[in-house]
């Protein structure tokens, strides 16, 4: 069914782009991080493109940690490797890697208006379209319907309510013998994911966005300190102490085996948690993340595909990039992985609404999502993010209060900034 749909889209694409020009078969390499079922879905997705064009796709898999992926990509690109043609890139990487990628403006000019302008803008550096969006991302609060019902609780809308509900259910269930149950799992490892989680806490308490759009360092303030101290109080009470080493997949592991009441995670976990091997199948739902008093905040995520300028098969690679980011490609991804499309028309699509009800509900969440400060901090974003997550991780581990650590962080960030970002 989806394959048929796919082929129709593909032939249209083939006619409208340079794709018809490639006479011989190439092998293009596509590098992607292995999170959840991303690799399997991609293998399925590229099949119709391979049939149509005669090219083949070699999928190169990378570790799930985005920091590890970035380090490897930077090395490959700095060395100008021709082995990889397409890179799947995080939304925050565009300013740092822009020099190494092909400008897609010309190739994609017909389809660009379909996408949300904010996403296209995030991938445009000095007028150059660095990557095509594959999907966008905004995290959700996953909750156990059955447990909330059992204890007569509402879905929490503030962090305070979440902590109280989680504590009550955790105590109640443990008394009933479920010793491994925890209230709330999230991503507390010292890596890019913690920057996302912590930015949400800080923003929802009215503590700003670390570095504001105009480049001012705003992180050292009372609200931000309160937000991070609140999170630190969860560790060991409603969240397992080990949450400080969890990335997305570890928290999903605890959640999907039925050992958590709440989880903060990206939409990809929705499809997996509904799978037949999931202990929480049919027992859970999602809601926007709670508020700290200044509204709910969700960090803008999302993945894109970029074509390496060192690639020997640029035409084939560009055609694959356009194919994967097309409406058909994004629909397939939405149905298979629960990823949010970057094409606004798909939020009204009946089939998506029926099979992945999360997606139409998520449009407004993601439209108000908070970007990480990758645009104002430019090439120094990684260092800023690492300093931020380290300061948060220290606080969560109990090394100093948030106020103390944020004061040091401000000093460090001033140093990194120097005279200008």
């Amino acid at each position, binding site marked *: 069914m989806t394959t048929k749909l796919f082929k129709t889209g593909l032939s249209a694409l083939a006619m409208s782009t340079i794709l018809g020009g490639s006479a011989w078969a190439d092998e293009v390499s596509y590098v992607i991080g292995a999170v959840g079922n991303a690799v399997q879905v991609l293998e399925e997705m590229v099949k119709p493109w391979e049939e149509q064009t005669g090219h083949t796709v070699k999928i190169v898999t990378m570790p799930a*940690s985005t*920091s*590890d992926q*970035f*380090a490897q990509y*930077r*090395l490959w690109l*700095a060395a100008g490797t021709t082995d990889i043609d397409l890179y799947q890139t995080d939304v925050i990487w565009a300013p*740092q890697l822009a*020099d190494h990628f092909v400008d897609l403006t010309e190739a994609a000019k017909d389809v660009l208006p379909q996408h949300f302008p904010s996403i296209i803008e995030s991938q445009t550096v000095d007028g150059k379209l660095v990557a095509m969006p594959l999907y966008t991302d905004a995290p959700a609060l996953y909750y156990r319907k059955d447990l909330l019902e059992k204890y007569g609780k509402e879905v929490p809308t503030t962090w305070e309510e979440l902590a109280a509900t989680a504590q009550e259910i955790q105590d109640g269930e443990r008394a009933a013998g479920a010793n*491994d149950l925890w209230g709330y799992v999230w991503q*507390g*490892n*010292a*890596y890019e994911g913690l920057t996302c989680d912590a930015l949400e806490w800080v923003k929802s308490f009215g503590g700003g966005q670390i570095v504001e759009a105009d480049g001012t360092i705003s992180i050292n303030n009372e609200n931000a300190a309160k937000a991070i101290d609140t999170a630190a109080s969860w560790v060991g009470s409603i969240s*397992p*102490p*080990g*949450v*400080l*080493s*969890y990335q997305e997949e*570890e928290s999903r*592991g*605890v959640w999907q085996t039925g*050992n958590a009441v709440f989880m903060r995670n990206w939409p990809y976990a929705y499809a997996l948690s509904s799978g037949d091997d999931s202990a929480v199948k049919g027992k859970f739902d999602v809601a926007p993340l709670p508020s700290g008093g200044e509204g709910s905040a969700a960090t803008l995520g999302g993945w894109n595909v970029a074509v390496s300028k060192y690639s020997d098969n640029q035409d084939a690679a560009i055609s694959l990039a356009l194919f994967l980011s097309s409406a058909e490609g994004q629909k397939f991804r939405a149905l298979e992985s629960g990823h949010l499309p970057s094409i606004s028309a798909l939020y009204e699509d009946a089939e998506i609404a029926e099979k992945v009800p999360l997606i139409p509900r998520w449009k407004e969440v993601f439209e108000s999502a908070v970007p990480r400060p990758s645009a104002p901090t430019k*090439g*120094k974003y*990684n*260092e800023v993010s*690492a300093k931020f*997550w*380290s300061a948060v*991780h*220290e606080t969560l*581990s109990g*090394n100093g209060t948030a106020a103390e650590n944020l004061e040091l962080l401000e000093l460090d960030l001033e*140093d990194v900034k120097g005279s200008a970002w």
Partner: protein
Amino acid sequence: MTDQVMAQASGPSLQQRRQRAAFWFLAPMLVALFFVAAWPLLRTIWFSMTDATLSNLYDAEWIGFGNYLQVRELSSGRTVYRGTLVDPDWWNAVWNTVRFSFASVFFETIFGLIVALVMNAEFKGRSIVRAAILIPWAIPTIVSAKMWGWMLNDQFGIINDILLNLGLIDQKIAWTASPETAMTAVLIVDVWKTTPFMALLILAGLQMVPRDIYEAARIDGINPVKVFFKVTLPLIKPALMVAVIFRLLDALRIFDLVYVLTPNSSATKTMSVISRENMIDFDKFAYGAAQSTLLFAIIAVFVSLYIWIGRVDLSGGRD
């Protein structure tokens, strides 16, 4: 002195001719070493004195010792010091590395010695035991780090499960996450992995010890503990010293295990990890090169110190 005078008088001596031949035999090796060891080292030192970044390696400009230490006057008149030598993250990494090296080498030597003594004894199935003991050493570090990562996982890990069932702990421990236990976790895995290496090197030393000394000791009725300290230990000391120096060199530049098991934890970040982080993650290639250079210098200091102390002891033993 007299030799030299004589050699000068009567043309090249046999000794000199042999030395010359030896030099020509060694030359290809020296050239290879220059390209694989000296050149990268010199290049790193050069990079550490420039402002190179990963995307701009070849047009880097010379900035002297700025990456190590620089003094800056702020517009407010305040003087600040910048550079690796005043970077608290760097000194934290140095301290972690030194702590890790001494603890791991200490435990590995003790356990390696015990294992070697067991393997040196005659018993049935000795060859199987020897092969089995080598398994941890044969597994690639990345694989064993990942494997232990899962075993030490707080929720699904087998270690916590065993300890809980034995009643040794009453709450699951987040081994790799908590700053108090992260270093212990790294040490456990490293000791597990590297003890066989130590055992093997010590075993080689043990097998050189002549059997008749033990026989003589047995006939004299000397207590086995005394035999160990008075006979075995002094005789295997040279082998032990070499084994320890190998391990110390290895431990001081530890990277893979820490990088996989406890990435980014400031409680375990070592010198190699932090220099890689600066070079690649933060795009401060020159700064990372400065840290690599310091890493090299620190290792050189430790090794010279060790050899110097070791030689003093050895000559004392020979007298």
